[in-house]
């Protein structure tokens, strides 16, 4: 049985990253789905871009921004004395960036699929825009959002390049499961690699299946 620390770390990082990506993605998705403004398609494309970058390259740009001497990172360091480099929080930032586009795109499509009639009905029944969003739009878009969340979670779990670049590969501290697998494959230790992959797959499949089940249980008719 191999060391499972990387797995727990991965789950923690992926959970945080998905949660953060969710908030931003839902916000942007709502904006682009419900309002028509100049440059909307452009914004949409820009927000999808992180997907096109090879993760390692993305990681490189992340360091440029968030690194100790990066332009956001140095500010963080000067004012709060914190640095994201080589910490699991840094890994969260990296994983958030790589998984964001998945959630954003899914959420936008999901919101666009919600008939505006229900939203209008809610407005007449006295809801503010915020209430309409939380009580009608969000629950009615739940399938697409869930699919997006699962994609984002899986992507965050599997991210390797960007996370590695920002968080380093410090055993017991920032070494995620993906890195451990990578190391094993690189080192030619295929038994270990296969075991790790098997464990990761089982964990991931379990999570995905359970999420699906929960979602189906909580789902309304139609």
């Amino acid at each position, binding site marked *: 049985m191999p060391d499972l620390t990387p797995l727990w770390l991965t789950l923690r990082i992926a959970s945080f990253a998905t949660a953060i990506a969710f908030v931003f993605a839902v916000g942007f998705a709502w904006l682009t789905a419900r309002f028509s403004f100049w440059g909307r398609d452009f914004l949409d494309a820009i927000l999808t871009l992180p997907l096109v970058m090879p993760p390692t390259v993305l990681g490189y740009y992340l360091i440029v921004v968030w690194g100790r001497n990066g332009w956001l990172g140095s500010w963080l360091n000067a004012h709060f004395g914190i640095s994201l480099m080589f910490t699991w929080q840094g890994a969260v930032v990296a994983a958030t960036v790589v998984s964001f586009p998945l959630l954003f795109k899914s959420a936008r499509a999901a919101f666009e699929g919600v008939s505006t*009639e*229900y939203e*209008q*009905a*809610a*407005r*007449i*029944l*006295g*809801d*503010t825009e915020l*209430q309409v969003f*939380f*009580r*009608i739009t969000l*629950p*009615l878009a*739940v399938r697409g959002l869930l699919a997006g969340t699962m994609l984002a979670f899986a992507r965050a779990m599997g991210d390797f390049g960007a996370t590695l670049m920002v968080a380093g590969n410090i055993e017991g501290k920032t070494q995620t499961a993906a890195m451990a697998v990578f190391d094993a494959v690189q080192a030619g230790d295929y038994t270990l690699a296969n075991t790790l992959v098997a464990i990761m797959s089982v964990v991931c499949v379990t999570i995905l299946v359970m999420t699906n089940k929960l979602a189906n249980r909580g*789902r*309304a*008719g*139609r």
Partner: protein
Amino acid sequence: MRLEIDIRKTLQSGDRRFELEAAFSSQDDLTVIFGASGSGKSLTIQAIAGLVTPEQGRIAVGGKTLFDFHQDINLPARKRGVGYLFQDYALFPHLTVRENIAYPLRKAWYLKLSLDDLQEVAEIMASFEIAHLAASYPAELSGGQKQRVALARAMIKKPSILLLDEPFSALDSMLRHRMRMELLEIRQRFDVPLVVITHDPADVEVFGDTLVIFANGRVEEVCGRKKLAAPENEDGWRTKVCWRAQWKKENLVAQNFAMASGI
């Protein structure tokens, strides 16, 4: 003076163009809007509810201005305090019947309903004969059941005006009769004016204190019950309907005539 409306709106779909020019006022508590399919009835009450923004004009209900182009007033739908029954109900598919009806009561997001509110929901469900459906989802309802749930939901907040887009079309005649009486009672109890779009002459009869007739996006005629117009030109069907609405049950012969020609 309870309802004043004078609006313009143009709708475009490809080459087709629809121009709405709706202007009428009604001092009565019961206003019926009658008219051919596609004549702009639904659009007009959607404008009152704040779902459609007119390009011009003014809308006032009970002295309160909901929309005024010149004064730059345009209250958002949630502040208009109107009740609205959608033509296709617009029941929230992710909520049960009970949750749909309780929707306007539950303002904080996750707060439980108070006992009073629960009581109210139970009462209104009972009076609309849908108590047994409380835990069902809209997809599991028959057409008439959906309509009653939608009515209950629109009425539970005691709106300052209740707009009904063909409220009884999917109901059987027994239920239709009872719902009409129910509505009239509610109207009286809470003093809420009703605006009803209908194709059913029986509705015109019961609700038509003021009868507004639409044709091609314009108001063709407005007849108050008080204005006892003589049935001069009986060849127009609208006149007949107006006339019928005014004379009501007192003149059975006229009614039959209207019925026979209006089958």
